[in-house]
């Protein structure tokens, strides 16, 4: 069993599996500038979103925390924060200040100060070229799996999810934790109905209570809308795939957690602690929002397990997709990396799990995912708490 990978060791001890220059958009009005630079300069990744302005305080704090978390993610070797105006509570200089604590190079480009979006594009383009020269001399080093944060998530679930691919993710999570690593899961909607299992798996009663609090808060918010969750969760495609209730979906989703105890629970986009083991984050079931929280939490790589097949790909946290549904593999294999549908033909879980484990470590070492090759930057989405104001 492999126990190491080759990554870029950062000043703060985190280890990147990629060495990108990150273009972080402070507000939606800076998005096109980020995208122009990303399409011009190699090895840059744009983080764009519709937020950062006219948000209530808890939302602004969540946007800020999510953007800072991406700047701090070790897959970013250097960061350029691009902003439009100064937005109290989510200001580019404050984002840069937090990210700079990692020791990585951070620059700020303010569109207004630069003289407009064209000038800002030129300024950020020059900076991106120079930062690429600065960071790409770094070599990969061999490090142990205790330096890995393995993100886990699932989407477009069907009945095959809890029986095949989610169990392979759980198997891989177990091996990473046994080697001292951390695993970060999320998706509170898909914990509804799994409370008994959470109580069993939590390392301490405090961890269980925190998670049950997240579930209660989410269910309360749904009930307050006066609607039936059915149709939204399980989603229409879940139901077509044979999942009948949120409880069934939840228990299948929880197969990804493997067999190890839950050591901690964190808020949306909060960075996880240093203890090895399974961590869980307060996120909705929505794939893009969930994996964005996990990337901000510090994960370098994500296994996204899918029944129906998926194109989901986070721009910065390297996302590999797997399925145990043979029909989905034949329809959607062009944007997925691993097929474990042979479990239904009798392949033991150990064998299928090890196939996933090896692919995860190959990708950590630099093997490109299909999402990276296609620059399928579709899954950056920040969860919101309240209305725009």
């Amino acid at each position, binding site marked *: 069993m492999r126990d190491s990978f080759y990554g870029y060791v950062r000043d703060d001890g985190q280890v990147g599996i990629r060495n990108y220059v990150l273009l972080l958009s402070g507000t939606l009005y800076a998005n096109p500038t980020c995208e122009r630079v990303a399409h011009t300069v190699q090895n840059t990744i744009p983080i764009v979103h519709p937020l950062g302005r006219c948000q209530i305080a808890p939302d602004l704090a969540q946007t800020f925390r999510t953007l800072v978390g991406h700047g701090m993610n070790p897959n970013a070797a250097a960061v350029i924060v691009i902003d439009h105006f100064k937005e109290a509570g989510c200001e580019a200089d404050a984002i840069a200040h937090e990210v700079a604590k990692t020791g990585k190079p951070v620059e700020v480009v303010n569109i207004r100060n630069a003289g407009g979006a064209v000038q800002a594009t030129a300024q950020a383009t020059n900076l991106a070229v120079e930062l690429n020269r600065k960071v790409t001399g770094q070599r990969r080093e061999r490090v142990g799996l205790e330096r890995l944060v393995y993100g886990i998530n699932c989407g477009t679930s*069907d*009945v*095959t999810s*809890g*029986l095949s691919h989610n169990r392979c993710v759980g198997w891989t999570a177990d091996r990473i934790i046994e080697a001292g690593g951390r695993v970060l899961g999320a998706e509170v909607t898909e914990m*509804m*109905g*799994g409370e*008994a*299992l959470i109580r069993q798996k939590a390392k301490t009663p405090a961890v269980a209570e925190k998670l049950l609090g997240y579930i209660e808060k989410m*269910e309360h918010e*749904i*009930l*307050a*809308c*006066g*609607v*039936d*969750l*059915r149709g939204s*969760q399980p989603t229409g495609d879940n*139901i*077509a*795939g*044979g999942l*009948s*209730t*949120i*409880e*069934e979906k939840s*228990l*299948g989703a929880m197969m990804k957690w493997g067999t190890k105890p839950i050591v901690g629970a964190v808020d949306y986009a909060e960075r996880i602690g240093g203890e090895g083991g399974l961590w869980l984050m307060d996120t909705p079931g929505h794939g893009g929002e969930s994996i964005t929280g996990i990337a901000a939490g510090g994960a370098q790589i994500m296994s996204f397990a899918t029944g129906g097949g998926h194109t989901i790909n986070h721009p910065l946290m390297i996302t590999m997709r797997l399925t145990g*549904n043979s*029909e989905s593999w034949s329809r959607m294999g062009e944007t997925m990396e691993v097929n474990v549908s042979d479990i*239904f033909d009798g392949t033991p879980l150990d064998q299928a799990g090890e196939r996933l484990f090896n692919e995860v470590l190959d990708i950590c070492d630099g093997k490109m995912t299909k999402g990276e090759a296609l620059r399928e930057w579709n899954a950056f989405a920040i969860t919101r708490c309240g209305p725009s104001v």
Partner: protein
Amino acid sequence: MTHVEADPQAMMRALIVHPDDNVANLIGPGKQGHQVSCVVEGQDGIETIELVDDLPSNHKLARRDIQAGEPIIKYGLTIGKASQAIGRGQHVHIHNIESGRGRGDLNRE
């Protein structure tokens, strides 16, 4: 009397995830009247159930007769309850079971 070979297409398979479960997960699509060989995880031997309905790929069938209001058990845990009586071999899905969670609709007048 001539021996008739079983049609391979008729050999349908299903998985029962936990010994306490009252539903089985079909592997692939299912045709009414066909026999389904069910593997029970962690147990030896095969259970055979005759399909009463046509089933879409990977959907659930009842492992035994289930009364209206009875819990539906999968992974050894409750995933909802029967909204009507369900016979052994029938399709089990949103038409005959319902969730107990996130039901804001039940709170309304």
